[in-house]
């Protein structure tokens, strides 16, 4: 339960964060809420030689709205996202997702930036962000860039974030008919399967749908076959059935003590249907 020794620095600005990072050389990490990195360091699974605390860097702690898009600073805690009226009105599925991460204490300290940087396959945010067409905003010493969430999560704890980059914000377009439903691991309460759904409903028809699934495979993915089944449908039993059975298409299901691959595949379908029901109820 004891981490290796490390140096600790506090950055008071974005620039300082990057210059401290450069000074620290190899094997330095940013720390925000610390709720991904501290547990790993305690078990000696992570051993950064320097931690650069970015929790006081200005400009990353707010939730703002620009037209149809909300922007959540990288340092915004899960509890803030879950309770934000701005988020609840604009993209209720995102607030819902933040509200089921970990437990109340974790939600008080863990940040969206940290969660997205760590990309645990059982994390909740990735499934929602992928479903809601979110954009991950990254910055480094030389500048900044944006990536679609779907392009950002690439593998087991792997992302398209490069060495030296920081997650500064996450932008999420409005989606009133959105939901996130999860089947938690009974022990860790990480997602065995977490499904984010965003529906574009016009009249009685679902014109298009996006479905993001986390926990089931080694990283969050768009369930594109399910999206095709739902798009252009009346969201009736046939469409739901088809979408459910396609929910894991093209993906290799994880297999662990909590769920076999076969059971996970089944859960993807069940959670998808439940998420669609919740999202539909929000129209």
């Amino acid at each position: 339960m004891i981490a290796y020794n490390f140096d600790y620095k506090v950055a008071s600005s974005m620039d300082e964060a990057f210059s401290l990072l450069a000074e620290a050389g190899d094997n330095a990490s940013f720390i925000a809420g610390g709720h991904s990195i501290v547990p790993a360091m305690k078990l000696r699974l992570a051993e950064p030689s320097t931690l650069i605390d970015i929790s006081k860097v200005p400009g990353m702690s707010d939730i703002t709205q620009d037209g149809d898009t909300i922007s959540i600073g990288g340092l915004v805690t899960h509890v803030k996202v879950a309770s934000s009226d701005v988020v609840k009105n604009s993209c209720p599925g995102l607030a819902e997702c933040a509200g089921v991460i970990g437990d109340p204490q974790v939600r008080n300290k863990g940040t969206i930036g940290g969660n997205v940087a760590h990309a645990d396959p059982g994390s909740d945010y990735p499934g929602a962000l992928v479903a809601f067409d979110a954009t991950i905003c990254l910055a480094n010493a030389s500048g900044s860039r944006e990536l679609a969430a779907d392009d950002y999560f690439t593998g087991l704890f792997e992302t398209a974030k490069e060495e030296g980059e920081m997650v500064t914000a996450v932008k999420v377009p409005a989606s009133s008919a959105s939901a996130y439903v999860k089947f938690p691991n009974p022990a860790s309460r990480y997602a065995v399967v977490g499904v984010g759904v965003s529906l574009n409903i016009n009249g009685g028809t679902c014109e298009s749908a996006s479905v993001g699934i986390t926990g089931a495979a080694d990283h969050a993915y768009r369930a594109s076959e399910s999206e095709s089944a739902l798009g252009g449908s009346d969201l009736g039993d046939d469409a739901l059935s088809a979408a459910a059975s396609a929910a894991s298409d093209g993906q290799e299901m994880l297999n662990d003590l909590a769920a076999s691959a076969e059971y996970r595949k089944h859960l993807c379908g069940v959670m998808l249907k439940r998420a669609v029901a919740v999202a539909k109820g929000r129209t």
Partner: protein
Amino acid sequence: MRYNIKVNVNGKPHDDSVNPRVLLVDYIREKLGLTGTHVGCDTSSCGACTVHVDGKAVKSCTMFSVQADGTDITTIEGMCQNGKLHPLQEGFKEEHGLQCGFCTPGMIMACADLLENNSNPSENEIRHGLEGNFCRCTGYHNIVKAVQYAAKKG
């Protein structure tokens, strides 16, 4: 390598030089001698270490003490003000919400945050609100009643 931290704990200021790898819970227990906050696991699961940092319940085992620089911390020792028990402390005694007492400080700190955000929680809301805290003795039945007692007391 040591780092200087200034923290306010239960209203008292502290100024200490710490090794960064010292967890907040160990700083509280070992440096400050406030042993009411307990360590029950090493995976941020059990919640026995829960304290309030700047008014919010946090697992003090999941923070390095250096991260607490500049914060206001309340531990279980700070819940009884001027000899007057917090309604939750009363409730835990009245409703037999503890047996061995080891999870109790963290449980009370978590429950206090729960009631701060929801002053009249339903049974379901209480049970879900305690997701971050394990008790092995009580089966949670009387802990729920303790929270209901405190909620009623206001």
